């Protein structure tokens, strides 16, 4: 049965179809995987009891029917706790299904638990979770990345074949790279945000973790498409993204390598070598590669920093102890109740981001910070648009260095914030990007790189990413002891 642990959705589906295994047994198998192994990495905040999962199961003739998955704990599952890994929502139960969970259930997927994350998705290491410290399955002294660290770690350790995460500035792609799995941030508006607890609403996007690109396409197909409940939802028709995966590169595929990212300060030599090797693989497969420069990328982290904090300050104003969550019961006045509930309910990182956000939005500072950040965003969008007139896809690293040690940035929070350096430009531009495993360091830590495309180019990205996986073995490596 252990061979099932790292099987793909596609392989599991074949076994179900051939009746080599039944849904019930498959569920048992993955519940046991968590029971036996999650104590080592703490990827899940909760794994639901079997009966409650099966109660919601309706077999469907879809590629994901009967296949278990894990959901990041900021995505609402009706009747289940949705804590955002925050004390303030510790016992909050979602009163409805997010659109993505609703669609997945309708497709027959089994949603078996809640993945750990940075509190309110604010962080790059999953260390700001109020409840658990998730470890990187490749090295327990290292972080899994973040903020969707629980989702990435569970998929990497073979505890689950797929998981959902959310990506505001890199929160799917960076942990995917740190844990050696596939992580896709779709085009802004392609996957509905209804039921995703908002962090930076103009940047947030729900996306997929898996070990194979084909599986990623399967889960994307189940979740993407227009939703009436999300006013930023794109009018994109539902489609089957696996149709794009035919094992061939697009004819005359042109790929641009963003050279200045590989030469950036602080780039780890092993990461550069691995990304260069990934470029060679695609070139050998027939892609036409050219080197390009994107000078404004250097300003994207600062722009992202300002915009995301500003939106977070607005979005998190609703957590005030009135309707749900933690309340200071001692407060005699309403105003004190707000102040104390939020002081006690939020962790330090969240409080800091709210304060920064209100500072950059406040009278006297908004022009200097917020409006300038929006100007830079416009410039970044323009630069991507021009470059996509010349190439079909872009390549750059996902992260400057492999997974860092737990606690490494405790004394230097700004360095932690800069983890978003290579990932946030795509959120600012609203374009899709996938992180793929492309190597291992001498210390046996995964390395990832990004394939980036223009709006709604998920089909081309997945097609190309699949060819990359056909020509490499990195996605077939697994951490020891699982």
């Amino acid at each position, binding site marked *: 049965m252990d061979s099932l642990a790292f099987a793909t959705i596609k392989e599991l589906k074949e076994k179900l179809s051939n009746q080599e295994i039944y849904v019930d047994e498959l569920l048992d198998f993955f519940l046991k995987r968590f029971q036996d192994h999650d104590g080592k990495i703490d990827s899940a905040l909760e794994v639901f009891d079997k009966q409650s999962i099966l109660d919601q199961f309706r077999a469907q003739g879809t590629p994901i029917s009967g296949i278990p998955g894990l959901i990041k704990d900021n995505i609402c599952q009706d009747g289940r706790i949705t804590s955002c890994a925050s004390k303030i929502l510790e*016992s*909050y*139960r979602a*009163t409805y299904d997010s659109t993505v969970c609703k669609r997945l259930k309708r497709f027959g997927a089994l949603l078996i638990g809640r993945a750990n994350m940075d509190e309110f998705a604010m962080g790059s290491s999953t260390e700001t979770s109020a409840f658990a410290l998730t470890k990187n399955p490749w090295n327990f002294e290292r972080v899994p990345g973040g903020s969707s660290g629980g989702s990435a770690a569970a998929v990497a350790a073979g505890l689950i074949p797929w998981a959902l995460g959310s990506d505001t500035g890199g929160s799917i792609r960076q942990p995917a790279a740190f844990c050696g799995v596939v992580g896709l941030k779709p085009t802004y508006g392609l996957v509905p945000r209804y039921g995703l607890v908002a962090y930076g609403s103009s940047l947030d996007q729900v996306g997929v973790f898996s070990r194979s690109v084909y599986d990623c396409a399967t889960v994307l197909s189940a979740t993407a498409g227009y939703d*009436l409940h999300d*006013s*930023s939802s794109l009018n994109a028709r539902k489609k089957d993204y696996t149709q794009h995966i035919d094992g061939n590169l697009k004819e005359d595929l042109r790929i641009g390598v963003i050279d200045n990212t590989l030469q950036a300060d602080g780039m780890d030599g092993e990461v550069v070598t691995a990304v260069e090797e990934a470029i060679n693989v695609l070139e050998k497969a027939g892609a036409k590669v050219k080197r390009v420069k994107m000078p*404004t990328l250097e*300003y994207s982290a*600062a*722009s992202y*920093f*300002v915009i995301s904090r500003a939106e977070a*300050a607005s979005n998190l*104003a609703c957590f*005030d*102890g*009135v*309707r*749900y*969550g*933690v*309340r200071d*019961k001692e*407060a*005699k*006045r*309403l105003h*004190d*109740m*707000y*102040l*104390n509930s*939020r*002081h006690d309910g*939020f962790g330090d990182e969240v*409080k*800091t981001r*709210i*304060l*920064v956000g*209100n*500072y*950059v939005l*406040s009278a006297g500072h908004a022009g*200097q*910070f917020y*409006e*300038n*950040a*929006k*100007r*830079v*965003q*416009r*410039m970044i*969008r323009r630069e991507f648009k021009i470059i996509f007139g010349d190439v079909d896809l872009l390549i750059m690293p996902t992260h400057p260095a492999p997974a860092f040690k737990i606690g490494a940035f405790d004394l230097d*929070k*700004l360095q932690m*914030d800069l983890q978003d350096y290579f990932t946030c430009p795509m959120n600012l531009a609203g374009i899709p990007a996938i992180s793929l495993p492309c190597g291992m360091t001498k210390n046996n830590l995964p390395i990832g790189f990004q394939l980036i495309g223009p709006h709604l180019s998920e089909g081309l990205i997945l097609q190309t990413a699949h060819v990359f996986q056909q020509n490499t073995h990195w996605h077939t490596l697994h951490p020891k002891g699982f």
Partner: protein
Amino acid sequence: MTKVTREEVLKIAEISHIFLREDEIEPMIKHLEGVLSYAEGVQEVAAGIEEPSIKRVNVFREDVVVKTDSETILAQAPEREENYFVVPVIIETK
């Protein structure tokens, strides 16, 4: 380098509805100064761009009444009375 005063931090904390303990104020000032100085980086490059990237599009839909079960929502209230959320005193009477 952005300088942040104690008064500014207290004002922002007030706007943010977050209480800061005395020992939390100084570290917050230091942190804000550090990150805001970094964020200032947007200014040099933004100088050459006229319009910020703000596109306003209204998205409308029909206002259809959908039945919801208010009990599941009210059941999570820290304090309630029948169909109301109960909060501490808002305006004190003399």
